[in-house]
């Protein structure tokens, strides 16, 4: 079979759409690379650290311990909550840390690999995708630990908590969109890699991570919920902590945010991709 490719500048909406479709097909064709990158990333992490896989558990536990310290010791928030503080934080911090880490790693990795792998032609979008997959394995492990932690803090378990499983694909979709978007932005605007650390710290405070969504004053609510991560984070808290089935409007909003974010990320990434090879 003879494969033919004709390439030139994409002029006009149809040509651009055809190009994007082609890029989506390319990405599918490279699915094995995505899988292999994801599994080797996990493996590299395992062999390059003395505690290896143990870090998958240590990372979230240490993070929760630190935030709990901050909450209890310094801010004296401990007494007011009806749930144990570590559990309250865990239900959302895991999710937040997943988004934070995946996006930031993808930005750095896509840039580094672009320089390193310049002579080889393959869809550059694989790195964000592989990174999201690899991190999702760690997220799943940490989430699986949540019921154990709940029991340790004397909280009951509920089958509703299993609903966190179908929430994961929604979260992955949003995250890969963000990872694509910021990775491409980093080629246009090299300051992104530095800015993103600060941006994500701010973003965390502007998402219902260390406080519940209902604490946000009603007049800001609409604006606040435009944050693509807001509803999905709140859904995780409702399922894991409150044992409550999230309302259809929350889930629907989270799905819509995921689809929109992923689409914008994909389109932006591939509009910018032809420029990657020309930048250093």
């Amino acid at each position, binding site marked *: 079979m003879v494969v033919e490719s004709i390439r030139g500048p994409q002029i006009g909406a149809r040509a651009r759409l055809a190009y994007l479709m082609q890029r989506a097909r390319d990405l599918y064709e490279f699915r094995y690379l995505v899988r292999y990158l994801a599994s080797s990333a996990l493996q590299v992490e395992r062999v390059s650290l003395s505690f290896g896989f143990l870090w998958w558990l240590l990372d979230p536990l240490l993070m929760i311990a630190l935030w709990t*310290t901050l909450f209890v010791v310094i801010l004296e928030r401990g007494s007011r909550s009806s749930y144990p503080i570590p559990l309250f934080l865990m239900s959302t911090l895991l999710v937040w840390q997943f988004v934070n880490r995946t996006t930031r790693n993808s930005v750095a990795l896509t840039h580094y690999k672009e320089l390193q792998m310049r002579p080889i032609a393959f869809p550059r979008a694989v790195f964000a995708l592989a990174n999201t997959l690899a991190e999702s394995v760690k997220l799943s492990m940490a989430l699986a630990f949540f019921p154990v932690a709940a029991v340790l803090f004397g909280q009951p378990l509920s089958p509703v908590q299993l609903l966190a499983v179908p929430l994961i694909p929604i979260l992955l979709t949003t995250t890969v969109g963000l990872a694509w978007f910021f990775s491409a932005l980093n080629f246009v605007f090299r300051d992104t890699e530095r800015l993103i650390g600060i941006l994500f710290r701010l973003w965390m405070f502007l998402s219902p991570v260390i406080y519940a969504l209902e604490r946000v004053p009603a007049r800001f609510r609409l604006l606040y919920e435009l944050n693509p991560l807001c509803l999905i984070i709140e859904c995780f808290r409702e399922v894991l902590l409150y044992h409550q089935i999230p309302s259809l409007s929350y889930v629907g909003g989270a799905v819509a945010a995921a689809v929109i974010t992923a689409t914008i990320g994909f389109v932006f990434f591939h509009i910018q991709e032809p420029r990657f090879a020309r930048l250093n």
Partner: protein
Amino acid sequence: MNAAANTPHPVRIRDATLSGRIRANLSDLVRFRHLVWYMAMSSLAVESRGTKLGRSWWVLEPLALMGVYTVFIKVILHRGGANFPLAVLAALLSFEFFARSVGRSMSLLKATQSSMLSVAFPRTVIPLAVTLSESIRLIIAVAAYIAIAAPFGVMPSPVTALALPFIVVEILFTLGASYFFAATSVFFRDLSKITDYLFWLLFHLAPGMYTLAMVPAKYRIIFAFNPFTTFFEGLRAPLLYGLAPGFSSVQTGIVFLVSVILCIAGYLYFLRREGSFNKVVV
């Protein structure tokens, strides 16, 4: 006339004892002083190359972080006192200096060990060069801070100069910590993960985002043991409030002494382990 001046070729004797190694290393450091300077300068030059905002990042980064913490404390937690953003900024300058120096010393030493194994230069220059370049950034940032604080009614006065000894001591402390963590990270690869958490705790258990007065009395003792309590106050009081740092001379004295000891001990520890760096595959 000493013997060395008459020898046509410099003779290098490697003495395995610690005192011999210190002597050799100190003379190496003198010989490689240009490398230290060059490494520091080139890292300053390269760091923001390619970014649109370039070197303004040196000031913009702490300013942006200040904004983030202000949102967190003021808007979300409804806390914070007068001149809160500037109070946070002083702490951030001081802390970012420390965290960046140690972090970069670790990563640069590791990178050297994996890619420049065959180039024999004394590895002790690495933490030195990193701390030097970060110190230059710190001093520029402090100068910018004085300029930023002026519109808020904080005019430079002779008291401002009191910040200087605190900065010097923090630099010594940071250099010692850089030597210690860099040397350890070659052998223990998880260290950079641990320091992430350790530094987070060091920052949050010091009066950085809040003043000591906001901390419940029963927990205040923890803060007394954190050297950053002294460093933050030492920068903040003279620069922001135009006051001499207000703690007991005992606490200040201890922190000064600890910093000097850490600097020397860190250097010696690095030197002791340097011999086996090249035997580890990083």
